[in-house]
């Protein structure tokens, strides 16, 4: 009814920007630190895709669960996992979110509803169905989100999960983060039905495609599918079309990319630039406030790196701790 320029209040806009910027600085720093040899194991960066995780997670509470992917840092940060603990985990330090035993692809924090990044493609989908079933049985209005890439969406587990979610009418949303490449293979070479919306229709649930580089497009669409799931309306699929600025993994030679592709993406399709232009252009936020957040995000990442660098490695005595859990 009011003629507010945005349906989101100013503080939330600033929080969203802070989250996106923190993810960006986190990933940009990892890109440097991997090349420097400071990081053990594989790292897959979320830079360029920040708007999707941020916009979706704004609709979730801590008790809502998410199941992430191998490219999970952005999901973790947006879901509230401690950045210092994440940096420690990626460096294999005892200060890490999983005490340094998981690394980049297995960061989890159940206290934040983050069930884990996942090194197995598509494996988050059945986990999200489980969390959604639990929420449905509890009747607490909770939802679960399964993030999956365009490549992993062809995995049997993912397709089985769509089926299960539909027949059990689970409060789960399958977010397909379509960054155009399954490792190095473009979608049209690998996805037989050509459209994730068609795929969702085949399982009897609605599907939506949004511009994943537009925070507000994702925010609006995610708000609708999450509200629907909370109210018992069942599962849906949300495809976010987006771009990643780096390779599939750090070290990927990216010979499948066209010349100038990444430069064009950074110049014209950067979700953070797009957000910034939208909120400052409409006068909703002062650019100086965003500049201050830029500095805060950078400082936070520097602090996280220093903290992780100084932290000890897990010792031999930690080898068998936190490996199994007793339900007795």
């Amino acid at each position, binding site marked *: *009814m*009011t*003629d*507010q*320029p*945005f*349906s989101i209040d100013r503080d939330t806009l600033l929080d969203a920007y802070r989250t996106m910027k923190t993810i960006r600085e986190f990933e940009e720093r990892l890109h440097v630190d991997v090349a420097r040899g400071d990081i053990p194991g594989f790292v897959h960066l979320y830079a360029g895709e920040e708007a999707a995780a941020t916009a979706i997670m704004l609709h979730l509470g801590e008790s809502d669960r998410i199941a992430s992917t191998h490219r999970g840092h952005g999901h973790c940060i947006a879901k509230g996992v401690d950045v210092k603990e994440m940096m420690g985990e990626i460096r294999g330090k005892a200060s890490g979110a999983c005490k340094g035993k998981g690394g980049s692809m297995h960061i989890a924090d159940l206290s934040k509803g983050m069930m884990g990044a996942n090194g197995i493609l598509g494996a988050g989908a059945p986990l999200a169905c489980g969390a959604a079933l639990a929420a449905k049985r509890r009747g607490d209005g909770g939802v679960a989100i399964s993030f999956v890439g365009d490549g992993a969406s062809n995995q049997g587990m993912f397709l089985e999960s769509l089926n299960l979610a539909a027949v059990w009418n689970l409060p789960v949303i399958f977010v397909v983060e379509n960054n155009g490449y399954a490792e190095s293979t*473009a*979608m*049209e070479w690998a996805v037989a*039905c*050509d*459209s994730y*919306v*068609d795929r969702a*229709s085949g399982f009897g649930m*609605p*599907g*939506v*495609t*949004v511009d994943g580089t*537009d925070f*507000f*497009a994702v*925010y*609006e*669409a995610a708000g*609708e*599918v999450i509200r*629907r799931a909370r109210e018992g309306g069942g599962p*849906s699929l949300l495809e976010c*079309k987006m771009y990643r600025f780096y390779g599939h993994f750090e070290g990927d030679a990216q010979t499948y990319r066209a010349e100038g592709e990444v430069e064009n993406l950074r110049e014209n399709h950067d979700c953070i630039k797009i957000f910034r232009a*939208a909120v400052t*252009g*409409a006068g*909703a936020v002062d650019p100086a406030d965003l500049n201050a957040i830029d500095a805060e995000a950078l400082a936070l990442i520097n602090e996280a790196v220093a903290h992780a660098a100084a932290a000890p490695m897990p010792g031999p005595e930690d080898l068998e701790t936190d490996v199994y859990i007793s339900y007795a």
Partner: protein
Amino acid sequence: MRVGLVANPFSARDIRRVIANAASLQITDRANIVLRVLACLGACGVSEVLAMPERGGIRAHVERGIERARNTGDERFAPVRHLDFPVTGTVEDTRRAVRAMVAEGVSAIVVLGGDGTHRAVAMDCGRIPIACVSTGTNNAFPDHREPTVTGLATGLAVTGQVPPEVAYAANKRLLVSINETEHHPALVDVALVAERVVGARALWRPESLRELYVTFADPSVIGLSAIAGFLDPVGRREPEGVMVDIAPLPADASRPDTSPAVRIDVPIAPGWLRTIGVRSWSRLAPGASRVPRLRAGMIALDGEREVGFGEDDDVRIVLEPDAVRTVDVEACMDYAARNGLFRRDERRALGAGRPAGE
């Protein structure tokens, strides 16, 4: 004789699938529509179809369908050539393709999409007629019809078997000008909304709606134009349009009722009936310029939020007559039937230069 083809793989994919049970026509079905149209164009003697390149799957399925038919000795499809340029997956593909089709001298452009796709084609096609096939969400501009018939009518029209004065119809459009420098056309409706984001593009929440301008007001279509259609029907071929001044209803039902003059229930999306408060409405005369009352907000063109404007901007809206030409399918088919164009016992059938019985 060449015909252009724009088949949008991304229409009917927005949030209205979730909130309103809107259809989401499958890519393979869109490809099948293209094949049906190609068969009809081929039967009428169209020599080549220039198609927009895309990577949403339609092209792959169409090429597969043609190859499979050819393997079985079936050559009924008009030859297709996809234009050669890098695909962006955005509306720019449509606009670039249409400009290339115009440069190559197509006689008509067959369009598969909703109001938004047709609007994008109309931005660049000039006087070249559009043959409309609805595969979008609201589809107020393209009428609902089996594409086989649209393909036949188009083929008969472009090959001159139906004379142009019968085959093509004139359509109005709305032109939004901002500071006399930016110009944005719409085929069906221009809506002014209070919020300032493009967001998910589609409009499905009436709370933010403030003003509505329509080229025609048909009560038998859905979408924003139905608001005007339910108040004051105006046909596509009539000269005037309609402007509706919206009185937003309080989101909270317990708040004091501001009692707008009229409340109507309108399907602003498929199956999505919303109550709209209306302060007043009036006819738009062709050529007359209107200045909106809303001072800052977003302009939605044919149902999708597109352009923002502020208090310093000079916004004007004009209804233009005879701005877009379309293939008049009913008129073509009626003429063809009355003149025996479908009869095989005549001198020849359908395709010009193609002997009967071949």
